[in-house]
């Protein structure tokens, strides 16, 4: 294949990754924005979403479409509930102290990951996509009668990949409207702006925190469900996902979902292109160093408000 079609393939991969990343990173950003804590277990919620999708698909009959639809509903709800429970049982009791929360969520990370290893096992398992038609894409090239449309072998996109992108866009639009137009969104924004004042005005901050933590985890789980037909479910898949969401949130700056979304597209696209053309390990080194240097030289990226 020539360079052009190759690049288009890389861009498609990048767009799918951007969509998944945007969902995950929005969850992480929301939790940091409202609760001012970094959730290191966020990648494990993503992994739990994928693993739950496998269990649901294995447990429901009636074909891959129904099983997948069920997973799309069940996994985010189940994982979100679990996260809200963890919030009440652990984070609330340490009063959301930033450093102790990181230590506690590292603990949560190991518990979720290792519990998955004990139940789901060390193997990677696939989930069948609900639909997966290949759509060949045209390219402009030299044909027998001069320049015209050609159909290079291998240049194609599947309907499922298009669905992932569309689903992410729909969910993110809903999330934005939910935060902007509903009462729950209003309470969240009020808590984000000033926790003390929100409390003084009778906003149930404790419940807002549990809801936010659950919602953040639910978004990660949804991303996990969407990803599992493309890459198999595995108990260690949360690590890389966490790293990428970290990068996205830190590059995008906190507070606005818009920044996170723009960063998700940027990171997803460059990751798609880099992993097609370069060594993935080298790309990861560049990414980790990028996060470190952004934090060192632009600390307002993560801290958002004044340091506490």
């Amino acid at each position: 294949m020539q360079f052009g079609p190759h690049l288009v393939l890389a861009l498609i991969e990048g767009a799918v990754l951007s969509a998944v990343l945007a969902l995950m990173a929005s969850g992480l950003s929301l939790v940091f924005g409202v609760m001012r804590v970094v959730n290191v277990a966020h990648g494990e919620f993503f992994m739990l979403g994928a693993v739950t999708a496998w269990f649901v698909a294995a447990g429901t009959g009636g074909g891959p479409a129904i099983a997948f639809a069920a997973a799309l509903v069940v996994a985010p709800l189940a994982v979100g509930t679990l996260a809200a429970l963890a919030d009440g049982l652990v984070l609330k009791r340490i009063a959301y102290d930033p450093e102790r929360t990181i230590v506690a969520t590292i603990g949560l990370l190991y518990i979720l990951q290792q519990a998955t290893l004990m139940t789901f096992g060390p193997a990677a398992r696939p989930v069948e996509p609900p639909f997966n038609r290949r759509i060949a894409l045209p390219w402009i090239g030299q044909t027998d009668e001069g320049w015209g449309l050609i159909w290079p072998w291998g240049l194609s996109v599947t309907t499922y990949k298009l669905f992932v992108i569309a689903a992410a866009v729909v969910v993110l639009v809903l999330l934005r409207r939910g935060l902007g137009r509903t009462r729950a969104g209003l309470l969240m924004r009020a808590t984000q702006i000033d926790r003390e004042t929100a409390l003084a005005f009778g906003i149930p901050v404790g419940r807002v925190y549990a809801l936010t933590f659950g919602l953040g985890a639910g978004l990660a789980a949804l991303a996990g469900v969407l990803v599992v037909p493309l890459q198999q479910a595995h108990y260690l898949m949360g690590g890389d996902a966490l790293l990428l969401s970290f990068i996205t949130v830190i590059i995008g700056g906190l507070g606005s979902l818009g920044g996170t979304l723009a960063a998700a597209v940027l990171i997803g696209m460059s990751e798609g292109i880099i992993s097609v053309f370069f060594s993935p390990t080298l790309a990861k080194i560049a990414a980790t160093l990028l996060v470190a240097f952004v934090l060192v030289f632009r600390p307002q990226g993560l801290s958002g408000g004044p340091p506490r």
Partner: protein
Amino acid sequence: MSRGAKAVLLHAALLAGLLALNWVLPDYHRGNLARVMVLAVYAMGYNLLFGYTGLLSLGHALFFAAGMYGLALPMHHLGLGLVPAFGAALLAGAACGLAVGLLALRTTGVAFMIVTLMFAQAGYLAILIAGAWTRGDEGFTIPAAARQVLGLDLTEPGVRYLAAWALFAAVLAILFRLVRHPAGRVLVAIRENEERARLLGYDTHAMKLLATVLSATVAAAGGAAHAALFGYAGASFAAVQYSILPLLWVLLGGAGTLVGPFVGTLFMFYLIDWAADVTPAYMLLAGLALILLTLFLPQGIMGLVRGRLRWLP
């Protein structure tokens, strides 16, 4: 008896007890305890930064690995002797500590944790990329013939135990001096209230940098000793897990206490050793321990003891 004398006596008694165990313990536990003492050196290095200076790093595996590879690579590829290789390992650890410190200390709190985590991850990936020399995840062994120092054979269990003990004792003694020295007091002052320490006229940034370099060097000594005594260097020792473990050991034993890291390492080592026989998911225990400690025992075991014995350093 004065408080100082009591503290000296207590730590001397601990060291004497550990020394005596060499002639009491069966080989299996002697090997385990030698490993615990080496890992406790790593934990003590971590504790200097976390427990005494109040800086929570999530990237100490970088320094442990710097020591391990700083010793193993020159021995393996250049045929360097054990003693100069150990010196190279300490230098590698100090250099990494200086580089990370200069950059990461520009941040505080949560950002500091993430920056250190990212540097350690970059180091881990760099070890994988340099697979031609490091053999990546698989790692390489240091032949028994090279693990000799001053006519002593470090592969022999008794000698290995005594070597681990000697390093442990030396580091404990150095840190004992340091934390009672005025410089150590300044570190604690920074932990308690950096603003106030600065107002008192201390150059807190320089002190934090010094603490980072010392902590990295001690961690590297642990890594180098691990490679020398157990004859293996592998990338898994540079992975995230090895950054989390010293945090866990120090939290469990008691942050900001001298013997806390050893107590925590000993306890967790045997707990995980036992759990690994039962299930492959033994890190589950580490996760549970982290959460339970944050919730119920943030001061750790020795912190609890110190609540009774106020003179413990």
